[in-house]
């Protein structure tokens, strides 16, 4: 049985342009398969500025076809369970907002909750660098959640990507700044010379 690895919006946008093919290919001992939910795609498509910043999302025919090919089809029963779980996860967030509003975090959105809820209907891991999502998953016991760099590490171990690509992804995210803010999630620099020791070597920082 495969385990779906669901990418949140940012995780998908960070990887899709650089890792090809990305979706639908089995990797690792547990037969992971990367996927992106329709809700995530809709989030990008309804935001004009995201489309402006990532024009390839819609314009790249190969990527669009890849997403279409790998659309996850749900039974009526699965959809009902997913809707209920997402609704309750979001309700839990809104009931306890302050918990998710500190340490530079933001309350998970309804779309975030739908991604997280997917683990209630199928074996799935969610990939997100949003720490509030990690907290919500811990609080509700709603399944495995990986940071983006953890996925990168697993893809590297499975030889789905190579050292050069890891270096290129780090470099691109470090260089990609918007309004003075780097696109590199906070946890990535911390593991750069630990999880990817063979790629980047020892840290030279004091």
């Amino acid at each position, binding site marked *: 049985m495969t385990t779906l690895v669901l990418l949140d919006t940012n995780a998908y946008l960070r990887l899709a342009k650089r890792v090809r093919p990305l979706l639908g290919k089995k990797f690792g001992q547990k037969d992971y398969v990367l996927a992106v939910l329709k809700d995530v795609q809709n989030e990008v498509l309804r*935001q004009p*500025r995201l489309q402006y910043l990532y024009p390839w999302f819609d314009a790249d025919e190969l990527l669009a076809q890849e997403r279409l090919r790998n659309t996850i089809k749900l039974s009526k029963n699965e959809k009902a369970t997913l809707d*209920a779980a997402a609704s309750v996860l979001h*309700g*839990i967030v809104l009931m306890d907002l302050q918990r998710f509003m500190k340490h530079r*975090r933001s309350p998970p959105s*309804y779309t975030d909750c739908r991604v997280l809820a997917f683990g209630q209907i199928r074996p799935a891991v969610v990939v997100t660098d*949003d720490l509030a999502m990690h907290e919500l998953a811990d609080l509700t016991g709603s399944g495995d959640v990986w940071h983006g760099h953890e996925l990168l590490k697993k893809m590297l171990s499975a030889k789905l990507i190579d050292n050069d690509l890891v270096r290129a992804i780090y470099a691109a995210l470090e260089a990609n700044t918007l309004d*003075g803010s780097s*696109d590199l999630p906070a946890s990535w620099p911390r593991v750069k010379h630990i999880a990817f020791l063979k790629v980047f070597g020892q840290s030279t920082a004091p």
Partner: protein
Amino acid sequence: MHKVIHSASIKSALAARGWTQDQLAVAVGESAQVVSNWLQGKNFPRPAKLLKLATTLQLGFDQLVMPEADQPVIAFRKKGGAKTTDEHIHKAMAMAALLKPLVAYLPERRALRTLLPTPTTDYALLQSAVAQVRRKLGIGPASVLRYERLIDEFRDNDAFLVPVLWGEKQNHKNALHILLTSDKVTFVYLNLDTHLEDFKFWMAHELAHVYTPELAGKDEGEDFADAFAGALLFPQACADGTYAKALQARNAAAMTQVLLDAAHEHTISLNTVYLQVQAYSQAKGLKPLPVKGRQIHAVRNSMRDGLVSRALFAASPPDANELIEATNHVFRSDFFVAMRQLLHEHGTGAGYLQQVLDMGLQDATALHVALVGDSAR
């Protein structure tokens, strides 16, 4: 916040499945006593168990948890032809919940507010009401109602204006009214990607909701708000003069021009002037102007004004700092002043802004940087 399980809804779901409480207890991995305590309101399940209840019974949050007594009141100013779905309502209710932490950072609430106790669309009574409102605003019966006076009136009634850029077409709503009943605070989201000629009408419409909180969110509230906005912006004294002038016009085109001149003078739409003049003639038992509504719409559609956002800002979309400045100084709203404090004190990330303003993450990130200096993704 004391939360209670919606026992009636759960019992009904159990009955539909032919289950007992004991079977439910086994399914969610709890003792029968624990489940019984939930259903009696003695205890509330922990988050993981609440999720388990949801997936076991396929019930959403609203079906599992009793609503609070003071639910927020939501009213949309929809775009023409747009349908409000459950998704829109849930999203607006989530925005209301997200606004609650901001209340502590807003200025102290005022003790006195304006309320219209008997809202009605009856012409004479409505004219009497708007005449009083106009006197309160310090303007004469036929004077142009300036934006500044409208804006101040929101402020004087603890209604915080929230200018947003929701696009001209993409969004289903052009304005959103959220009344946090328990906190007695109103937030009025105004889409600046709106034609100039419509904007003042929408503001007046939203002001009507502020004056009639018990009607906001109901169909009759929308009807009243539309009637109030038209009457406030172009009251009887204006309609009277314009009607007389229009009757002297030689043909329909000249008559339409009289209405257009009045619309330009008041910075409102031709349609609003037309409707007010016709309502006036009907109320007074006079002959209606011999101009058809479809002619008015054709003229209006052929000469649409620009967007408010274009008039206010150098570029579209505007720089985040420009939006903040306009909110603070043009709309005289403390929304971003309070938001800046909240973000600083809580250390909240850009995703909060994204959700509370219903905007894209990239725009929210830029706004977050402008408010607190840097941004967490």
